[in-house]
C-alpha cells in the first residue's frame, strides 16, 4: 500500500437541507441542478441522512409517490443508515468499507466528519474517477483492489468505459455498458457502437473533439470542447445520458464516459409534462369557454367546407396554397394558445406537409392539396383534447351556449390540483385566472393581452415592451363583456402590425428600439368607465386612409377634399374598410376595428381615435358598467 492519504481530501460539498423541509423542496432542487447526485439532510449541525437523486426519482415515480412525498417532510425520503467516516481515514480503506455495504446502498454518499463535525461527503462516482486518474501511480493498490472496484462498478447503475484517441474501448468497463448497448463491447470501437444512434453533426463533433482533446496541443481549454459532445443519446429505445471526464491512462490520455440510463426519469418527466398540459387545457376550458368552442367550430368548418371551397374556387394554386397554409398556421397558433396541444401538434404536422408543397409549388397540383385534405378528419384532430376537457368538465361543456357554470366545489378542487402539480411561477399566473372567474379587474383583463402582443411582435420581427397598465381598478363580470374583450385583440394587433415600426425604422426616427403600448383604465362615474389604449408607433396616415376610401368607393372625390381629419380617421371603423390588401384569417371571420365599435355599441358604449402621424395612435373607449 503506497497511499497514505486522508479521505478528507476527497470530501465535497453538496447542498444540505433541513429535516423540516418538504419533498417539494428537494424535487425543485433536483430539477434545477441536474448534475447534482444527492443531498445531505441536517438536523441543526448534525447530518442525519442523505437523499440520492436516483432513489428520490424511484420513490416519487411509484404510483401515488408524487402526492405522497411532495408535501411531507423529507425525513420520509431520506436514508438514515449512512456510512460515516472520520476525515483522517485512509483513502485505501474507503473502497473496502464501501464494498461491504449492501448492493442497494453501494452508491450512496459517504459522510465525512471531523471530530464529530460534518465537513462534507464522498461521492462514489467521483471516488472511482479519482482512483482511475491515479491508476498509474496507484498500480500496486489497484491490483489488490481490482476486484472490489470491479464489483463497485458493476453494481453501479452506470456504465463506465474509457476510450483512446482511436475510439478503442479499454478492457475495463462496467457491466451496465453491456446492458446499454445490448452486446459485449470488449475490443469494440465506440464510433462503430454509436453509429446507428447519432446524426452527422454528432459524428463529426465526436471525431473532431476527441482528436483535439486527446492530442498533443496543451494550450486548449478541454472543458469547452467536451461541452460540445452529445449529452443524451437514445440507444435501443433507452435514454442514455453521457458524461465525460479526461483521465490519464498508463498509455497516455484517455476519455472516460459515464453512461446513465435515464429512461425512467424521462418517462416520469413525460407523464408530469402531460399531466400539466391537461391541467392547463382544463384551466383554459373553464376560463375561455367561448373562445375554445369557437375555435373548435371554426376548425371543423374549415376542414369540412371552407378548405374545399378555397381549393375549388381558387384560380391560382400558389394563392390557394398560401391561403390554406396561413389558415392552418393560424389555427395551430390559436389551439396552442388554448393549450389544445394534441390538436396543435397534428396541425403542425399538416403544416409541415403544406410547407413542402409551398416550397415546390410548381410541381404541386390542386388535386394534390385536395388529396391531402381528404385524409384529414377534424374530429380525429380534436378527439384527444376534447376527451381531456369532457372527462373533467362533463359532456355538457360542449353543448353549453351560455357561460359555463362550474360549481364552487370543483373550482376548489381545480385550484388544489394546480397547487399540487404546476410549478410555482405558473401557479401565480393561473390561480388569479381561476379566482377571478367571478369578478375581475379590467386592468387584469388588459394585462392578459401581453402574451399575445409579444407573440405577434415576435412573428413580425418587432420589439414591444411589456404592456404598461395604468389607472384605477374597475371590477367587472368578465362573462358580460366577453365579445368586447375579445374584439380588443384587433386594437392590439393593429398597434403592433400597423402602428409600431420595425426596430431600425424606430431608431432612424429617434425613438427607442422597442415600441411601447400603454393601457389606461379608470371609472368615469357610477355607470361608466374609460379604457384607453395608446401606442407610440407611426400613427394613422390620414391621406392614405382617404385614398383607400376613395378607391373602395366609400367616399367620392368631392368628399375627398372636404372631409375633415376626424371624419377621415373614423373611416377605419367601417366594415368595408381595410388597409390590408389580402384577406387574413381574422378579417375573413368578419372582425377588425369595426368589430370593436360594434361590440361597444351593443354594450351601449362608444369609441374615438386620436392619432398623430409619426407619433402614435390612441383609442379612447367609454364602456358602461353592467351590473
Amino acid at each position: 500500500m503506497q497511499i497514505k492519504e486522508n479521505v478528507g481530501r476527497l470530501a465535497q460539498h453538496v447542498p444540505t437541507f433541513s429535516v423540516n423541509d418538504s419533498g417539494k423542496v428537494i424535487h425543485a432542487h433536483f430539477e434545477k441542478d441536474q448534475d447534482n447526485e444527492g443531498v445531505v439532510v441536517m438536523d441543526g449541525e448534525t447530518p442525519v441522512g442523505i437523499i440520492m437523486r436516483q432513489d428520490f426519482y424511484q420513490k416519487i415515480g411509484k404510483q401515488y409517490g408524487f402526492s405522497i412525498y411532495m408535501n411531507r417532510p423529507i425525513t420520509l425520503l431520506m436514508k438514515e443508515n449512512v456510512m460515516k467516516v472520520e476525515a483522517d481515514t485512509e483513502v485505501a480503506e474507503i473502497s473496502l468499507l464501501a464494498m461491504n455495504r449492501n448492493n442497494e446502498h453501494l452508491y450512496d454518499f459517504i459522510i465525512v466528519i471531523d471530530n464529530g463535525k460534518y465537513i462534507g461527503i464522498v461521492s462514489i462516482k467521483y471516488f472511482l474517477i479519482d482512483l482511475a486518474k491515479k491508476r498509474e501511480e496507484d498500480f500496486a493498490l489497484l491490483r489488490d483492489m481490482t476486484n472490489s472496484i470491479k464489483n463497485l462498478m458493476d453494481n453501479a447503475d452506470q456504465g463506465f468505459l474509457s476510450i483512446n484517441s482511436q475510439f478503442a474501448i479499454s478492457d475495463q468497463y462496467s457491466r451496465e455498458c453491456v446492458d446499454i448497448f445490448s452486446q459485449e463491447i470488449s475490443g469494440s470501437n465506440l464510433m462503430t457502437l454509436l453509429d446507428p444512434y447519432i446524426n452527422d453533426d454528432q459524428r463529426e463533433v465526436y471525431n473532431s473533439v476527441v482528436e483535439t482533446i486527446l492530442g498533443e496541443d496543451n494550450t486548449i481549454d478541454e472543458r469547452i470542447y467536451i461541452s460540445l459532445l452529445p449529452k443524451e443519446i437514445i440507444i435501443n429505445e433507452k435514454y442514455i445520458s453521457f458524461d465525460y471526464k479526461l483521465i490519464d491512462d498508463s498509455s497516455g490520455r484517455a476519455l472516460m464516459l459515464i453512461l446513465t440510463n435515464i429512461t425512467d426519469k424521462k418517462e416520469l418527466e413525460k407523464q408530469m409534462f402531460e399531466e400539466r398540459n391537461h391541467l392547463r387545457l382544463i384551466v383554459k376550458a373553464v376560463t375561455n369557454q367561448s373562445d375554445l368552442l369557437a375555435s373548435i367550430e371554426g376548425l371543423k368548418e374549415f376542414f369540412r367546407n371552407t378548405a374545399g371551397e378555397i381549393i375549388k374556387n381558387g384560380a391560382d394554386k400558389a394563392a390557394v396554397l398560401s391561403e390554406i397554409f396561413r389558415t392552418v398556421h393560424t389555427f395551430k397558433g390559436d389551439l396552442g394558445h388554448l393549450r389544445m396541444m394534441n390538436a396543435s401538434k397534428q396541425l403542425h404536422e399538416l403544416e409541415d406537409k403544406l410547407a413542402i408543397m409551398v416550397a415546390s409549388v410548381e410541381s404541386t397540383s390542386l388535386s394534390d392539396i385536395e388529396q391531402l385534405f381528404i385524409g384529414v378528419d377534424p374530429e380525429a384532430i380534436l378527439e384527444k383534447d376534447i376527451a381531456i376537457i369532457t372527462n373533467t368538465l362533463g359532456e355538457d361543456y360542449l353543448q353549453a351556449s351560455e357561460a359555463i357554470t362550474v360549481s364552487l366545489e370543483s373550482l376548489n378542487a381545480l385550484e388544489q390540483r394546480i397547487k399540487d402539480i404546476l410549478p410555482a411561477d405558473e401557479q401565480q399566473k393561473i390561480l388569479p385566472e381561476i379566482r377571478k372567474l367571478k369578478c375581475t379587474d379590467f386592468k387584469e383583463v388588459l394585462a392578459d393581452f401581453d402574451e399575445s402582443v409579444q407573440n405577434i411582435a415576435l412573428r413580425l420581427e418587432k420589439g414591444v415592451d411589456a404592456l404598461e397598465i395604468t389607472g384605477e381598478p374597475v371590477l367587472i363580470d368578465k362573462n358580460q363583456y366577453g365579445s368586447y374583450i375579445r374584439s380588443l385583440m384587433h386594437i392590439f394587433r393593429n398597434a403592433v402590425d400597423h402602428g409600431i415600426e420595425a426596430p431600425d425604422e424606430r431608431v432612424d426616427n429617434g425613438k427607442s428600439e422597442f415600441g411601447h403600448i400603454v393601457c389606461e383604465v379608470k371609472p368615469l362615474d357610477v355607470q361608466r368607465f374609460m379604457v384607453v389604449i395608446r401606442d407610440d408607433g407611426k400613427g394613422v396616415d390620414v391621406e392614405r386612409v382617404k385614398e383607400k376610401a376613395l378607391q373602395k368607393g366609400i367616399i367620392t372625390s368631392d368628399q375627398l377634399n372636404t372631409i375633415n381629419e376626424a371624419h377621415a380617421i373614423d373611416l377605419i371603423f367601417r366594415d368595408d374598410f381595410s388597409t390590408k390588401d389580402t384577406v387574413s384569417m381574422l378579417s375573413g371571420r368578419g372582425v377588425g376595428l369595426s368589430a370593436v365599435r360594434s361590440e361597444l355599441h351593443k354594450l351601449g358604449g362608444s369609441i374615438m381615435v386620436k392619432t398623430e402621424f409619426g407619433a402614435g395612435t390612441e383609442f379612447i373607449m367609454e364602456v358602461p358598467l353592467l351590473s
Partner: protein
Amino acid sequence: MAKILVVDDSMISRINLKKILVAEGHEVVGEGGNGVEAVKKFSELKPDLMTLDITMPEMDGLEALKKIMSTTPGAKVVMISALSQNAKIVEALKTGAKNYITKPYEPSQVLKVIKDAVI
C-alpha cells in the same frame, strides 16, 4: 469592462445581445450584419472582443473568423450559434475562437462566457 463588436444578421438578436452587454457595463462599439462587415469593422474598430454569429448571408461567421485570425492571431472572438451546429463550433474553436454561446441563451451565461474570454 470591454469594448465589444456585435455581429449577427438578425437585428432583434443584436438588440437583445446589446441590452445584455450594456446593462453589465460593456461598451458595444459597433455592429455588423454579415461576415464582410465583421472583417471590415474588426480591423477598423479594434474591439477587445467580437461576438460572431455562425450563419449569416454573404460571408458566414466561420469564413470571417478565418480571415480575422489570419491577420490578427490573438483576436478574441466568441461564436454565437443555433442548435445542432456543434460541428461548426468545433471548427471555429480550432480556428481560434475563444468560446461559444448557443441560442437561445440566458443573460448570465452570455456574461460569464464574455468575462472568461476577455481575460
